[in-house]
């Protein structure tokens, strides 16, 4: 059965909405395949606006891996803004993919990548616009199987009613396995219906099917236990880990949109995982162990990607890019190779203690000199011990001094507010640090116009971290501390005028906290908020705190719990957490011990450079650290073009 494009029906609506280009597709390196020739068809969604979702590496990687299979087709879809949603409802246009504008309901599988929990309401909009029942229980064989992935999938319980499946961890191999299972089941004539294919997925041990588990509660509202309600379903579901990144050099053909996106650059993931052990950082906890891509693998991906995209900037991505064992050789090698081609390099996440001025100079040699960004996260030394982010103020001052004397004029610093055990004093230290940066910058550069921008986010305790037991700080306290911090920054005008301060109030963080550590009962809140018009919760102009608190009270109180119970309540050691049956590899006892260490202000080293501290991941998952140095060199490509990283013999001999 062929499927018609909805574009002829969409096109007349486009002149009536803002930024229509985001809905027309036509990205460079996009793939449109023959519908009828495919035996399994995936729609991949990033549940945020196109400009945010398009550059997402996860979606791009899976899109390419799936489309490389001859009989599999993958297309992409993004959240539509309310102006188009309204017109689509009026004119009966369903949620569509941007590749061939096919209706979502026609696909076999819908994969949704949740980088953050704030995309949950957008998922409901997309399902509803597609004509797919929002409750998994109401879907039939005519509906796609809805699979959640991304970091938020490590606790998918709040969306358990809406998804059919969740995959924890790296998706590269998981999507292939799921595709194979669905293909076989379809080829057999779909025996046993939807239940059977979901059971086959569950049997792999690496696909979580929420409906196959029952949650029982204690009278006080806590969870008593979570157990499978049928045979062939495992008690615990494990996360996926892709080893040997060099064997997975994706994306090979990165998508380049016609529309402007939030990341106008070509990204290469130089390693995955991080064992620095920052206790607030869910990404660092759930992506262990560290797996480096080799210097040669990186070099090949950069060249291939530049040829395929034409981008002027290469981002070397990871959770802490300066920690790559051969980062100096990589940056120097790339800067040498692309000299004169106007190709910039950037390291989006760098630790101040792994950074040095040689690295900074290589980064800015062939391109624009952007600002320097570091994330001390905690203002006081004590706070940084609690969160195990052991960068010292001396390191920071030394680094920024060197940068300022080498011509940089601006540094951006990221912090969090509302961390466990935090007092006003810890937050006020942020002002001192910023002032010291200005003083050091003025001295090093001999100029008065240096700038320091401090950016402060509200801390949200996340599952699978040592802070999963921590009480979240209430928004009033966070707002009060931020107000005092602003006063402290402004107290000394001679320094304060060179310090910019950016922050949001603490309210969205509390809702993120509800969605992060919530259980299945929170699904009712998400649905009620969405039905009341909640959309794009990650966007200040769309987020409504009042709506969330009203709906939370309305939906949760009859169940004997409330917003505070899920957020500002401290959990006990033996409490069953909603995600305990989802195995990130981290040993719960180790996490608890690390939480106790945090409270005692005791730090923890990195297992790349010191002995294993038994977090549990490697033995549980059968993985191991994969780091260099390899000692190999990045080969120059000769010749690169003039004014372009590509040499075209038909133009210049």
């Amino acid at each position: 059965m062929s499927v018609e494009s909805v574009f002829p029906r969409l096109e007349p609506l486009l002149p009536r909405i803002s930024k229509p280009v985001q809905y027309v597709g036509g990205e460079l390196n996009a793939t449109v395949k023959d519908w009828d020739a495919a035996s399994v068809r995936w729609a991949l969604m990033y549940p945020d606006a196109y400009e945010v979702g398009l550059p997402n590496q996860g979606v791009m990687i899976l899109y390419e891996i799936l489309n490389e299979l001859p009989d599999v087709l993958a297309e992409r879809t993004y959240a539509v803004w309310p102006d188009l949603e309204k017109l689509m409802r009026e004119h009966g246009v369903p949620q569509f993919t941007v590749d061939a504008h096919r209706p979502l309901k026609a696909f076999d599988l819908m994969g949704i990548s949740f980088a953050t929990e704030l995309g949950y309401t957008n998922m409901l909009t997309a399902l509803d616009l597609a004509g797919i029942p929002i409750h998994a229980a109401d879907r039939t064989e005519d509906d796609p199987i809805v699979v959640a992935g991304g970091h938020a999938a490590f606790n998918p319980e709040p969306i358990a009613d809406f998804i059919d499946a969740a995959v924890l961890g790296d998706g590269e191999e998981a999507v292939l396995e799921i595709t194979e299972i669905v293909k076989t089941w379809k080829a057999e004539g779909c025996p046993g219906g939807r239940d059977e294919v979901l059971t086959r997925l569950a049997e792999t041990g690496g696909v979580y099917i929420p409906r196959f588990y029952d949650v029982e509660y204690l009278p006080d509202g806590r969870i008593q236990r979570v157990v499978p309600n049928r045979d062939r379903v495992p008690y615990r579901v494990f996360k996926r880990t892709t080893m040997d990144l060099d064997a997975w050099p994706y994306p090979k053909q990165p998508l380049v949109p016609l529309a402007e996106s939030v990341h106008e650059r070509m990204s290469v993931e130089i390693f995955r995982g991080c064992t620095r052990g920052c206790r607030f950082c869910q990404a660092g906890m759930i992506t262990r162990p560290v797996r480096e891509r080799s210097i040669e693998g990186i070099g090949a991906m950069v060249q291939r990607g530049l040829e395929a995209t034409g981008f002027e900037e290469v981002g070397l991505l990871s959770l802490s890019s300066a920690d790559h064992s051969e980062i100096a050789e990589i940056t120097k090698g790339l800067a040498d190779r692309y000299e004169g081609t106007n190709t910039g390099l950037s390291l989006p996440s760098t630790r101040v203690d792994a950074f040095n001025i040689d690295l900074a100079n290589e980064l800015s040699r062939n391109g624009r000199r952007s600002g320097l960004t570091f994330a001390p996260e905690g203002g006081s030394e004590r706070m940084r011990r609690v969160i195990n982010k052991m960068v010292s103020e001396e390191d920071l001052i030394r680094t920024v001094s060197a940068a300022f004397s080498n011509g940089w004029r601006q540094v951006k610093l990221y912090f969090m507010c509302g961390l466990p055990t935090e007092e006003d004093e810890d937050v006020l230290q942020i002002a001192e640090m910023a002032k010291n940066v200005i003083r050091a910058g003025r001295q090093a550069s001999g100029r008065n116009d240096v700038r320091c921008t401090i950016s402060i986010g509200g801390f949200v305790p996340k599952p699978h971290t040592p802070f999963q037991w921590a009480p979240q700080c209430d928004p009033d306290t966070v707002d009060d501390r931020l107000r005092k911090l602003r006063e402290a920054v402004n107290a000394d005008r001679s320094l304060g005028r060179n310090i910019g301060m950016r922050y949001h109030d603490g309210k969205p963080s509390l809702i993120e906290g509800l969605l992060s550590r919530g259980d299945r009962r929170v699904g009712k809140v998400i649905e009620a908020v969405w039905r009341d018009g909640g959309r794009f919760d990650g966007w200040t102009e769309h987020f409504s705190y009042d709506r969330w608190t009203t709906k939370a009270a309305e939906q949760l109180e009859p169940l004997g719990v409330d917003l505070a119970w899920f957020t500002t309540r401290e959990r006990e050691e033996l409490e069953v957490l909603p995600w305990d049956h989802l195995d990130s590899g981290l040993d719960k006892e180790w996490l608890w011990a690390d939480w106790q260490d945090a409270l005692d202000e005791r730090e923890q080293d990195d297992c790349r450079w010191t002995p294993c501290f038994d977090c549990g991941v490697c033995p549980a998952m059968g993985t191991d650290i994969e780091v260099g140095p390899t000692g190999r060199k990045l080969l120059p490509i000769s010749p690169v073009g003039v004014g372009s990283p590509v040499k075209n013999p038909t133009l210049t001999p």
Partner: protein
Amino acid sequence: MQKLRLRYTKRGRLRFTSHRDIARTFERALRRAGVPMAYSQGFSPHPKVSWVGAAPTGVASEAEYVEVSVVERVDPEALKIALDQALPPGIDVVDIVQAHGGNLTERIDASEWRIELDGVEPERLAEAVSAFLAQERVEVERLTKNGKKIIDVRPAVVSALVEPRSSDAGHDEAGLSQPCGILMTVVRQVTPTVRPDDVLNALRVVADLVPPVPARAIRMAQGRLDDEGGLVDPLQQDRES
């Protein structure tokens, strides 16, 4: 340094791109095609690409112009082919010449537009156009970033003709003939710019003409107005020297 002048199109769904989208896409295509681009000097070097006007977002075009400068001499035909291959379908390079002095912008003072109005009878459109041409002033409102602006559309319109009904007009889903009024109009480039939208608004003002679905506009040509009200190809002069 060699300077080349190109005419390119903005066809199909590419008409929804803004000028900034086109510029980014173009610069990336130049890099992928391995064009030896000249870069500006300074803190933030950018490729030497000069844009000559730009069709508004939502409007298609058969005649957009751009100049690029290269640091190594290239064969214009080879560049046209290489660049066209690197550009997405819909942005097609249709003409290229080596620049021989002069200023391209000065060779353009008007555009010819084709405006397709689905669901509007050609006769009804012709009446509206006559009513419009009979006026000396036709003021319309346009929303800008700085609020509402009043524009007099009439003086900018050099000519406006409705194409007669053709036998193979579009058909709707039921296979029945759908009326489609087609307006060909030459509009002078004035300040503030008069866009196809403004012309349509002017038809609403004078004759209450409101198309049932949004009209589609295509820029067919740009150039200097000749004595007969036609347009002179702006690349002609370079081709002849």
